[in-house]
């Protein structure tokens, strides 16, 4: 397929099923009553368990490792030591870029699996055995403060850079447009501000596990919790040919993506694989601490210089960050993509020290937070309504909306849609912004707490169908349809919306279409279910495959069949013999003649006609298996979809406690496939965003580098009483690059809202607070701590 004509946003939206509420996800009851089998529930006959030794210190080298007592613990089958040359150690596939190698003698961060792992008959035996090992350590310099690391001559991460404590070989400039210095000369005001964002960590729902087994003919089965299936196939491929690998995905507790998860899931899988290969018994690897491995891209210091005019128009932005955004360097990427600010510059330096290298999860929080802080500060400095400041700066790549419009209309996008304006209209009304917004520090609640509101906006996320995906559709002997995919590690409910798309495109009843998980060994790369490759990426393959499957069915509906029985040829005329597929259509799983709708045949009739008289002839089904691959549009310009969010807080100036009273979240999703699922991503992501913005902070011991709160008792995850009522609004301007102009939103609910409480706390108390807005940070801003 040539991408010259691949313009999926021009595809017509089917009139039924898409956009409907009230459908129940096909796996909902199973999940609700707990009979859904998750990876951590998988048990195989005669199964062993395998666990890493996890370093609690931030730095050090193993001088001597004595595992003699470990080996004697009841139930221990094997100790996998880093210095055992007989073991085929880690694959290069599991050492992506500058990620740390595991299971060697060197500790680079607290939580790092080093030294050895234990294979035993139970998890308990593994735990007991690990405790019996005696390690003699060589103490090495340890630093968990990035400023100190930058100033130090000691090296903390020679694995990444043996020269100095800077990753990526020094300072970089990113996302620059225009001339910032020139811009500062032509604006009414210049402000400078800075703040700190603490480290937070993903805390996936399900502890990381993987199950692997080899049979005596070297066939390998794996139950993998994660997204990067192909990587794992490559790793096992170093032991056995890839065509002997059978990958399964059980249900997976929410893991929120990004390179951190890929590394953790990869190393968890690798441990199960190597233990199973050595012991020739099924092995389950368990890495509970993995939930707390990973630092968010946002952490670090942000220092801004901003030039703007009296009317709120921003002229020049210069941002300097230390420590954040490691994977992307994308602090101002969303500002660039969604504003007409003509002069932008971002310099950054990523120090290396004894924490896990920051990455992303629910990617984009650093960009969303930067945009939030920029606009909140400018609006505050001007004492202007921040929604007005947003509108005046809306655009993309330094151009105004008006400047972007002609090209966009020419490319087939609807004319005259102003996403931000539409989002603001809905959101301000639903949130009652006009009565809630006030000047900073101007409203006290009857109970003495200060009232504040926060606002943020940015582009819609995942506007880009940035990679090709494939989809398979199988029509069964009874006329039902499965869409073939593999379940991936994130939680969003995509099974339902994807089935809706296929049913709508084919003309099937929704109940007849099942989005079939765990069916990925079909000879091509099936879709990852969700995450960054959600709707925006996968929809193209789904629609194309559904259209192809429909066309295939209509062709067979017109084609006479011949059945061979007992040596005889029995002719079977097609229900639409003599007609051509273009004269037919489908609705509710029934094929009909367009000019004579009473002339019908069910899908089941057509399949059975051509599948033969007996379903034993399964090979005939292949006639009704179709697959299609999506493409990447060659025209992808500035994103025009927008999102905006509002939050209302109460701040207790005595205790510093910030309570979230209410929120309103507005997302332009282009075209809504399933509004219930979209709402789920909105309120779900918001809850996580508020955790990151208002509560969560990883605490380290400054001397040993040990993490002090890597557990759910001391690392606060928000609960049902912590977020207040949330109003979710959907806008559909059809301005995305995916089919029907759709846009994904799986990450932005969390990523775009992380800075909201900082903006709201300023509105409440007239002071800027570091992120998260914990009582300690609020009291510090108030001069009370």
């Amino acid at each position, binding site marked *: 397929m040539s991408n010259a004509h691949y313009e999926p946003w021009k595809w017509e939206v089917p009139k039924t099923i898409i956009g409907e509420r009230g459908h129940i996800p096909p796996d909902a009851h199973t999940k609700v009553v707990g*009979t859904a089998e998750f990876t951590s529930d998988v048990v195989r006959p005669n199964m062993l368990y395998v666990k890493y030794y996890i370093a609690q210190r931030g730095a050090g080298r193993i001088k001597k490792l004595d595992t003699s007592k470990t080996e004697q613990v009841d139930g221990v089958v094997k100790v996998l030591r880093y210095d055992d040359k007989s073991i085929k150690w880690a694959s290069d596939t599991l050492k992506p870029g500058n990620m740390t190698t595991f299971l060697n003698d060197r500790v680079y961060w607290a939580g790092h699996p080093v030294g050895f792992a234990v294979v035993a008959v139970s998890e308990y035996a593994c735990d007991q055995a690990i405790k019996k090992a005696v390690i003699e350590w060589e103490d090495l310099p340890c630093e968990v403060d990035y400023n100190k690391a930058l100033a130090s001559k000691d090296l903390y991460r020679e694995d990444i850079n043996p020269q100095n404590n800077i990753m990526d070989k020094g300072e970089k400039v990113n996302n620059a447009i225009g001339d910032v210095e020139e811009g500062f000369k032509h604006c009414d005001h210049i402000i400078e501000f800075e703040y700190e964002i603490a480290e937070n960590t993903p805390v996936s*729902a399900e502890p990381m596990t993987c199950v692997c087994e080899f049979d005596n003919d070297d066939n390998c089965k794996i139950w993998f919790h994660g997204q990067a299936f192909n990587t794992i196939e490559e790793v096992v491929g170093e032991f056995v040919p890839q065509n002997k690998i059978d990958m399964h995905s059980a249900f997976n507790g*929410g893991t929120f993506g990004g390179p951190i998860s890929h590394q953790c899931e990869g190393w968890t899988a690798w441990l199960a694989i190597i233990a199973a290969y050595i012991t020739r018994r099924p092995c389950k690897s368990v890495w509970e601490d993995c939930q707390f491995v990973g630092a968010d891209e946002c952490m670090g210091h942000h220092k801004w210089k901003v030039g703007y005019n009296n009317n709120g128009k921003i002229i020049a932005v210069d941002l300097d960050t230390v420590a954040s955004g490691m994977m992307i360097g994308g602090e101002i990427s969303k500002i660039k993509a969604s504003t007409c600010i003509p002069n932008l510059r971002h310099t950054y330096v990523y120090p290396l020290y004894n924490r896990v290298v920051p990455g992303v999860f629910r990617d984009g929080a650093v960009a969303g937070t930067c945009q939030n802080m920029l606009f909140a500060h400018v609006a505050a400095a001007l004492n202007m309504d921040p929604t007005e400041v947003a509108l005046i700066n809306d655009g993309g790549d330094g151009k105004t909306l008006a400047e972007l419009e002609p090209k966009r209309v020419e490319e087939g996008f609807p004319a005259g849609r102003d996403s931000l304006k539409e989002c603001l209209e809905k959101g301000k009304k639903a949130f009652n912004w006009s009565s809630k917004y006030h000047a900073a520090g101007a409203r006290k609640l009857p109970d003495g707490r200060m009232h504040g509101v926060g606002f943020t906006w940015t582009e819609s996320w995942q506007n880009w169908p940035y990679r090709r995906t494939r989809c398979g559709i199988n029509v069964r002997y009874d006329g039902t349809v499965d869409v073939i995919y593999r379940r991936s590690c994130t939680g969003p409910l995509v099974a339902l919306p994807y089935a809706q798309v296929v049913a709508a495109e084919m003309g099937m009843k929704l109940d007849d279409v099942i989005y079939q998980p765990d069916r990925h060994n079909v000879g091509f790369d099936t879709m990852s279910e969700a995450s960054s490759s959600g709707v925006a990426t996968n929809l193209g393959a789904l629609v194309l495959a559904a259209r192809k499957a429909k066309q295939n069915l209509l062709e067979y509906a017109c084609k006479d069949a011949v059945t061979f029985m007992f040596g005889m040829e029995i002719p079977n005329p097609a229900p639409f013999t003599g007609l051509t597929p273009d004269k037919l259509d489908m609705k509710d799983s029934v094929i009909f003649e367009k000019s004579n709708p009473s002339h019908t045949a069910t899908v089941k009739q057509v399949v059975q006609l051509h599948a033969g008289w007996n379903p034993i002839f399964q090979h005939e089904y292949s006639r009704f298996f179709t697959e299609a691959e999506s493409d990447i549009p060659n025209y992808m310009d500035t994103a025009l979809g927008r999102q905006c969010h509002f939050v209302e807080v109460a701040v207790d100036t005595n205790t510093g406690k910030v309570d979230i009273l209410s929120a309103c979240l507005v997302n332009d999703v282009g075209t809504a496939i399933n509004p219930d699922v979209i709402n789920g991503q909105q309120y779900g992501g918001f809850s996580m965003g508020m955790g990151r913005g208002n509560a969560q902070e990883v605490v380290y011991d400054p001397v040993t580098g040990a993490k002090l709160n890597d557990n*759910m008792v*001391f690392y606060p*995850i928000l609960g*049902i009483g912590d977020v207040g009522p949330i109003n979710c609004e959907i806008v559909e301007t059809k301005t995305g690059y995916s089919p029907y102009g759709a846009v994904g939103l799986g990450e932005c609910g969390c990523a775009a809202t992380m800075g909201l409480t900082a903006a709201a706390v300023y509105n409440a108390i007239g002071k800027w607070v570091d992120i998260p807005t914990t009582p300690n940070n609020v009291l510090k801003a108030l001069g009370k701590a």
Partner: protein
Amino acid sequence: MSSEENNKKTSGLTRREFIKDAGIVVGGASVASMALLSACKGDTKTVTQTVSTTVNKTVTKTVTVAEDGVELTDLHVILNGEPRVCHIEANWTLRDALKEGMGVISLKDMCNGCGACGSCSAIVNGRPILTCMALAVECDGAEIETAEHLGVINHPLVNAYAKNFCAQCGYCTPGFLITAKALLDKKPNPTDEDIIDALGGNICRCGTYPQHIIAIKEAAKGGK
């Protein structure tokens, strides 16, 4: 520093290890545990002890101390209306016993068994408890209800939860469901505040919280 020193941190210590290593000194469970732990390693005799448990029952336990020092006993419970028995090690938590011994997979473990997530919840003798925080032996003879059972009896909560999108990844959901059932058993028409109070110990990383309030109220009205 030895690795043992390295391992001494709260998060790395499972409930089972804590019980095993420290002995139990809290509540009624202490009697049972001390009886069990007082037996010598390698002692094969049978110990019979009457214990008072945290679920306010008196039970008689027979404990066999195997050659390797592992203390074994039987756990008898009424699980989801059916009498069940399984062989357990004396230091197992109720979660271990139900999951590993009886195959109850609705009991999850989001917080590494430190009592902070609610994903392992079950109703024991009418009260919702965290099964990772209860010693199995102290629940001997108890009536236990898990989320699976609500599916079997088609409790209105099940459909209300399914249709209101209370499960995204679904890992936490059975824990919420069974806690909600315990609430409805006690308060058939709960207010929003009652629901928020009752579910305060349940964590959902996918953030499905608003839907539980809707679903529980809907189920309270008979599923409408």
